[in-house]
């Protein structure tokens, strides 16, 4: 067991965690942040993607103890408040980039990390950045369109 101090969605937290607990299990079971999904638990599908220090990581392959001292962003921290959505969330809705919703959290966080680094990515860049996230329902085309839509919205909101 180890004591970890971390910041989750802007809020400081201290926890005691087992050595073998993954960050995904920690977020889901200890913090009740079940929006982080587990689709394969071997780092292939990307459903569990969260952002650690601005970079997307696989929470299923990342131990909770590694998160000590880190800033973590999960799907629950993406919307600015209870009634509004962030541009990328809104674009996923408007662009019908969501079907069953299971891959959506990971897709959104990967897309957010991309847009934070590159506010105006072209299609190839989006495909390259996001190809570690698998969608089995709606296909990828609408997700690419949604990322582009969010990029446009970002551009108009921040001249």
């Amino acid at each position, binding site marked *: 067991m180890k004591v970890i101090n971390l910041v989750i969605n802007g809020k400081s937290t201290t926890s005691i965690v087992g050595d073998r607990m993954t960050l995904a299990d920690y977020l889901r079971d200890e913090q009740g942040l079940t929006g982080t999904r587990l689709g394969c638990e071997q780092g292939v599908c990307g459903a569990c993607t969260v952002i650690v220090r601005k970079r997307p990581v696989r929470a299923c392959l990342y131990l909770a103890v590694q998160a000590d001292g880190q800033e973590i962003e999960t799907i629950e921290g993406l919307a600015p408040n209870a009634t509004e959505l962030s541009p990328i969330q809104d674009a996923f809705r408007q662009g019908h980039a*969501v079907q069953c919703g299971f891959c959506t959290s990971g897709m959104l966080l990967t897309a957010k990390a991309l847009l934070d680094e590159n506010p105006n990515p072209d299609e190839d860049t989006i495909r390259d950045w996001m190809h570690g996230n698998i*969608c089995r329902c709606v296909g990828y085309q609408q997700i690419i369109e949604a990322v582009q839509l969010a990029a446009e919205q970002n551009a108009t909101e921040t001249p």
Partner: protein
Amino acid sequence: MTSERDRRFVGQKRTTFESARHVRGRGKFVADIQLPGMLHVVMVRSPHAHALITSVDTSEALAMPGVHAVITGADVRARTEPIFTLAALHDPPLDIPLPALAHDKARYKGEAVAAVAATSRALAEDAAERVRVQYEPLPPITNATQAMAEGAPLVHDGSPGNVIMHRKYDFGDVEGCFERAETIVRRKLSWPRQTGAPLDTFGCVAQWEPGTDEITFWSNHQSNVLLWTLGATLGVPSHRVRGISCDIGGAFGGKFWQPRGMVVCALLSRDTGRPVRFVEDRVEHLESGDNHGEDRTYDAELALDKDGKMLALRFDIVEDYGSAFVLGSINNSEPLAQAVGPYGIEAVGVDFTAVLSTKPPQAAFRGFGGASLNFLLERMTDAAARELGLTAEEIRRRNLLRPEQFPYTTPTGNLYDSGDYPQALDRALELADVDGWRHYQKDARREGRAIGIGLATCQERSVQSGSALWLMFDQNHGRVTTAAETATCRVDGHGKVTVALHSPSLGTPIETVAATVVGEELGVNPGDVSVRHLDTAVAGPAMGPVASRMTVMLSGAVSGAIHEIREMMRPIAANMLEAAPDDLVWNKDELGYFVKGAPDAHASMAEIAHVAYSSAYLLPDGTRSGLESTYTFDHPMATLPNGSDWGIFAPIIGHAVHIPVVEVDLETGGVTFLDYAVVHDCGTVMNPDAVRGQLIGGICQGIGTALTEELHYQDDGSVIGRDFRSYLIPTFLDMPNIRIEHLETPSPFTYNGVKGVGEGGRMVAPAAVVSAVEDALSTFGCAIDEVPMTPEKILGWIDGKNRR
């Protein structure tokens, strides 16, 4: 029913209800269910594909701290009745049990033989490793040829020779057609096991209530109605089995019949007095889940006359059903709803053999076998075109049914409701710019590049009758399961509308569809409608989101319920307005009843609702308080099989033309898409974005089917494809952008002419992509008769294997 001109919400863009929670991470999937005191279940699984179980020792596992219970196959056998499978409906019943935990022997690698319940999943996994199971390995059977070989070991003792069914059918004058034929094309094709592989694996939570002996399941099962059958297995009356649906993270047929984990969890909950949860991990889902699709070979002949008109199709099919016969022969009977495709083929002959093997039981995968039958028919069509020197489009033009032939009865007895196939083909050829691509192909060929233009013109049947499950059982049926769907609509005392679905949601998006229909029929904004899901304790007949049926069935149920509520409001409003009920007209803009010819005399829905809920003294005689309707919509056309055919069982027929353009890398065998054009007809489009999502997602799976996905069984009975590193699902890097145009030929039998759309993309794409690759490799003279077309196989074809 509204006319096209008057439609308010049907066919309009509408952001889905479901996405509102999912983009916030607030969907509630089964793995998110947390109950006080909940235990976690881990299965102990056989490392052998076929082995006698000689002993199981649970003592060491049981002694571990945190372990609350361990059960074995023997416990399950002693404490439950057999799980219901369709094998029981065969006459005589087939002796092919589906044990929740194997007790006498393991029949595939990964079959569960024991289960542990502990306070955490990690502890349960540790304990599962301490369950000591002794095995005596037997030879595995990994394909139908091995299964039927002389002296092959038996999978089930009650199935001699491992053959469970053999049937032969002639629909129409097959012999006569073949005698008349000028040309007969023959091909052998194969289609290996694949699976839907939803990101959300199967899971359930079971909670037994000791006081009432009720069992409640939370699960991602996609058909609540089937949970009732668990009561008999568990010795609980069916009305004390309650199923609560979670959000389902994809299913694709693989969560249609999932009783085993539920039986195990129910027993463990009863033993421990606690709720227990089981969620498959990825390897369990792929290697040992109840979700694998069809697994078959075809030996087929197509008879054509001198003009290239197809007369008859006949095929022998050998299907490897794995270790049980869970869904009966549905993966073979259901596709025969559209055995002749969009073509005017007069007769169909089927010789069907079903065998057992040491693989997991076959279940459903998006299309109930329809994708592989479309593949067969389109491969035969292309082969005939090649034989006759016709282009792919010309042979189809000569054979497509014409619009004036609908409604059309096929040789197997199914009805095609409507369509305009020649128009779909012409528009697709134009959308794809096939002529332009053929020039490009020619030029590229000179540079040594292999470009291929594919074409598939396929049917997408929807709205099944449950009789498809046992059509091949050949018994004196007398029963058709019409697979109804139910919805409950309520206008509350403030005039607000709630619709309750009796089936779970895959996000496809049936909640949005239901609200759209409420809006259309009542006039309220669909965004103001609240949508809920009922649990099975109070749900009516509902088959759930399978067989591309929900849009048709749910719109029938919701519109029926809304019309009943409107009729409930009519006499109340008439009383309020002191008018004759027949003089009232519902006004969708003002949301209320108006008196004909007196526009000032009206009662709003809120006013009527207020009276209906709280002023019984104002109600006319013969009415009661409340405004609620539960309406069950039955399959619009189901008929019984008769002596010569199977009757109507899937009559709502969509259609699609897919034209992919590919480049094959002759050095690596890799396939890249240059374009992918689709003209698609699912009748009236209910929600354009949702239809597009179904199509593109389905095509994505179909491309996986065509190029990469396979559960590949090795000689020792183990499978390659047991995780996402070897079961290769298309990614962002593999999928082309799909260009789609819609053609709408409304169904005369459904709400506003809608047709199903859920399985279509995957039913058509494999045939289309194979034809494109074959076209690209045409200079090498190869004929492609199998999927997936892996780079290794493509290089083999280039090197001259399988030349014709």
